[in-house]
């Protein structure tokens, strides 16, 4: 008894220390966000705060933060819907029908995802220019959908393949065609996986920097991550404004995660058991 409590204490002490260490960077960002620039310049980033102000938040919001946030929403929401809709359709076809060479198709889609995006930067940038969509949010949506499809399809087809065949057979007997089966049976049953993927995709696309700076050039269309980068100066950066901007930029992803948390965990669990 006494042995188990002492080991319990050790466990709590170790776990507690790790949690505190884990949270330290976030606390540091939050503290920096509410300091004034003069305080940071005079006392350094690492010193204890000697000022308290929300001016950093106001600065970040008015210095392009508001527009960038809207741009991010304009990119992220359509991209998540489009890529999940397309990959759900692809996954349905690949998992429920005997398409010749479907294994190769899936592997090919996955292989596309294994390519490092860095080697595709120049071709993608040139391609969007040729298509005349360079420097538009539309280009970013197309690129993001294209690069997301492979992975989402792979996950969804694994999930759909695990559905019992009897359900589909019963629907067929009831007279449902492939499209009806997809809409009325497969898609609703895939909800947990879709919700989990939607939460993931939202975070990835919202936090992406690389594609945004590859296909965009004007500050007016930049989403939130490059806008955050633009708060950094060539020599001198206002760390309080950058920290405040980071806090603002984190809010949507945190909100989405909290909202989808339940689906997210159950989605993973369902996938794991089957």
């Amino acid at each position, binding site marked *: 008894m006494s042995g188990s409590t002492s080991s319990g204490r050790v466990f709590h002490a170790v776990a507690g220390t790790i949690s505190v260490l884990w949270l330290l960077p976030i606390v540091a960002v939050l503290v920096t966000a509410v300091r004034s*620039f*003069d*305080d*940071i*310049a*005079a*006392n*350094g*980033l690492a010193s204890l705060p000697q000022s308290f102000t929300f001016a950093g938040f106001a*600065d970040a919001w008015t*210095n392009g933060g508001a527009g960038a946030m809207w741009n991010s929403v*304009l*990119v992220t*929401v*359509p991209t998540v*819907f*489009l890529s999940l*809709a397309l990959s759900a359709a692809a996954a349905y076809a690949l998992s429920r029908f005997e398409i010749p060479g479907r294994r190769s198709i899936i592997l090919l889609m996955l292989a596309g995802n294994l390519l490092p995006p860095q080697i595709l930067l*120049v071709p993608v*940038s040139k391609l969007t*220019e040729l298509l005349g*969509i*360079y*420097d*538009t*949010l*539309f280009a970013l*949506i197309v690129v993001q959908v294209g690069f997301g499809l492979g992975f989402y399809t792979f996950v969804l087809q694994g999930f759909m393949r695990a559905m019992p065949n009897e359900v589909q057979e019963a629907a067929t007997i009831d007279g449902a065609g492939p499209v009806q089966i997809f*809409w*009325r*049976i497969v*898609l*609703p049953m895939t909800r947990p996986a879709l919700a989990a993927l939607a939460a993931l995709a939202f975070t990835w696309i919202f936090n992406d920097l690389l594609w945004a*700076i590859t296909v965009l*050039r*004007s*500050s*007016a*269309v*930049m989403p939130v991550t*490059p806008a955050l*980068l*633009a*708060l*950094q*100066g*060539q*020599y*001198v*950066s*206002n760390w309080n*404004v950058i920290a405040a901007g980071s806090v603002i930029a984190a809010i949507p992803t945190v909100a989405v995660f909290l909202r989808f948390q339940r689906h997210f965990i159950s989605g993973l669990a369902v996938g794991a058991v089957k």
Partner: protein
Amino acid sequence: MDRRHFLRVTAAAGAGLLVSGTASCATSASSGPVTQAAGTATIQSNLSAPAAKAAIDALVKAFNDKKGAQASVNTVASETFRTQLPSYLTSANPPDLFTWYPGALLKGYEEKGLLLDISDVWQTMGDYPQSFKTLSGKVFVPTTYYWWGFFYRKSNFAKWGVTPPKTWTEFVELCKTLQGKGVIPLGMGAGSDSPWTASSWFDYFNIRVNGAGFHRELLAGKQKFDDPKVKAIFTPWREVLPYTDPNGTAIGFQEATTAMLQGRTGMLLTGAFFADAAPKDAIDDIDFFRFPIIDPNVPLAEEGPTDGFFASAKSPHVKELKEFLTYAATAEGQEAYIKASSGTVLPTHPNAKDSGTPLVTKGRQHLKEAAEITQFFNRDSSDALQPTADAALVKFLQQPDQLDTILTTWQKAAEQVWSS
């Protein structure tokens, strides 16, 4: 609600989402690029620091208020700008103007035919000294420049009872005194994301010992980094290494300024942009002195990095952009810029007023006295050569006894850059 109904509702919702997805996609496409309105010259700017951004905004506003041609600024992070500049320039529809500095990189683009010949703007710039003209060639219009020096707090020097040195001996003596008082005499800040600060030391030792001519030849690949003349400049540098911040290669530039402002270090070799990193109430307390003379026979050279604009050869707004460049080169335009900036940059126009603070007046005089102006390591050589200097100099600061190996390695790395 029965199951069928539920499924129908879900399907409808799904379809609805799809439609709304494509719909918002269409709207976002229309909110796409900043339309290049006829008669508006777009300026791609890397001046992302708040003070510098305010300054270029003020310049453009003053230009637009004249109701002639119009210009608009598009600010991107300086790091993004640096890496994306080649793709901006080679794109089918590039921005019209770019903020940048003269140097090897610009020459390279000029030779590839990517830059617009703006010699007729120079026709309006008769007052400009020949040195700016030589520096800029046919493709660049300089608007501001700044100076480098050892910056310190007047109140701290008074407290420690020391005065700025003139000669190298006095400088070493000053370091010794400060160390005796428990202060680290020399800040560095070559850690984190600013290893390039060490290059300012290299530049200064080289222009003080070997002169600006040799320095330029070395950076252009006509001399060797393992030359005995280069090795010689590390002798005075070694002399002051014991007085240099032992954390010099660990902390970055911005932290190093804080250490100096707090009096933990005595002084910092840095550029006038340093004032951007200082709290407002400390600025009046800041002064600087010239990097001490080591060999009085070497003509006085100073670092005076120049900034300005160049234009893309593909621009459809040649008339508008030239009008803007002409305005940016006038005293009026530069005064508008400087008024909105943090005030430590100098106008390139000889008759334009600077911000008029004692610090800036002294800085302008400081550069006027110099017989030769160098730009900075990366500007006199290339951004590709800068990392070789960073690696070599940071290693020297950490292991000064490895100098011979460091210089041989540096020369090898530099040769690779030059031959590529």
